[in-house]
């Protein structure tokens, strides 16, 4: 695997209200993945098209904020909000980013406890058998009140917390 580009973005540098209307229903995970991948994709060779790019989203815990909001709202009002359910799914981050970026190649979300980063790289290498390029994006965002709990019980998440890091690879 040959690293073509890397892009990073921190949650503190993303203001969802300032992004364009297509981000209206986005979560912070979705915005961070899309924005960082957009930067990395600028390094895709000009003759490559986006169906030739596989996409792996690696997230230890997925859309925790949306899940919490969905459950809290439902608990308080007894009315489930479809957009919060839709956004609570692990795969929703990948779905949103692939739609925004026009990625139509193979795509997977991977959540594999402490082995998530290793599994993601393994899958990326595998997907290079199907397409000449692969994007791998690591993302985890947690609501502030839950951070101490997660850090105490899952210390491995600390270096991935509240940021997205995207890498674009080609076949060696």
């Amino acid at each position, binding site marked *: 695997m040959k690293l073509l580009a890397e892009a990073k973005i921190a949650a503190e540098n993303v203001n969802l209200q300032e992004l364009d209307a297509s981000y209206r*229903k986005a979560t912070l995970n979705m915005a961070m993945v899309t924005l960082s991948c957009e930067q990395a994709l600028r390094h895709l060779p000009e003759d490559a098209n986006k*169906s030739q790019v*596989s*996409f792996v989203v690696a997230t230890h815990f*997925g859309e925790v904020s949306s*899940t919490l909001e*969905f*459950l809290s709202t*439902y608990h308080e009002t007894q009315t*489930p*909000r*479809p957009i919060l*359910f*839709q956004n*609570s*799914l*692990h*795969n*929703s981050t*990948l*779905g*949103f980013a*692939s*739609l925004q*970026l*026009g*990625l*139509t*190649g*193979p*795509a*997977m*979300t*991977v*959540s*594999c*406890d402490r*082995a998530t980063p290793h*599994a993601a790289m*393994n*899958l990326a290498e*595998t*997907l290079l*058998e*199907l397409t000449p390029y692969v994007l791998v994006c690591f993302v985890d965002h947690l609501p502030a009140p839950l951070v101490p709990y997660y850090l105490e019980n899952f210390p491995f998440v600390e270096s991935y917390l509240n940021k997205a890091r995207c890498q674009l690879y080609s076949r060696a």
Partner: protein
Amino acid sequence: MAEHFRIRGPMALTTSSCSASLQALATAFLWIRAKKVRRCIVGTTEIHADLTRVGFGSLRLLSKNICSPFDKNRAGINLGEGSAFLCLEDAGLRPQTAGWGYLSGAGLSTDAYHATSPHPEGKGSQEAMRMALESAKLDPKKIGWVYAHGTGSPANDLAEAKAISQVFSHKPWVSSTKSSHGHTLAASGALESVLGLLAMKRNEILPTHNYKETDPQISLRITSEKVAQPLDHFLKNSLGFGGINASVIFSKTARPS
């Protein structure tokens, strides 16, 4: 599970919604083909949670009656619970031992169309099926049966039906068994692969229970009764939220390497 069973080789947990377990089968296929591993355990478990039931209800995707995939009056899905695990191994590892079947091709794609609805023409699904056929080096006419995702949702079934019609001009049999066991979401790909492998061993096309009336927009060869027919290959589809598509092809005999 890897720790419990002391599995030291590569592992992955894909959480790609309803395509997850078919993606996992595709990954195992690619790992074995690339000689990264010689054997791989693949599977999924899906259990009911209030979050799932309430969530799908909020999207108005649930049918109040037994679901009826591809039927003119289909009105949504039934949630199901299930678990299925398969052991895949390099066909050359124990050539004298007959397996249940052979995974001969896999294809993956993304719609990039909508968060929860498939592309109306099933473009992504078409791409996944074509990739699987190419990977298996099979002419579409060799596929005797398409074991569809077929959730019973109006939009999903129509998109998948259009995709199947585009890829397979010879009108193979098409079934969905979700009216028998419900939609087991992430587990559906693995669970239905096992059912499909058993059916292929018996040369049977599984029925789509509760299929009664043809939808004029759907031009597929669907049966509500079991059909006895010699079967060498079948293709299994999964389509998931986020526009994630997976297709795999199972064959009765191993392709010569």
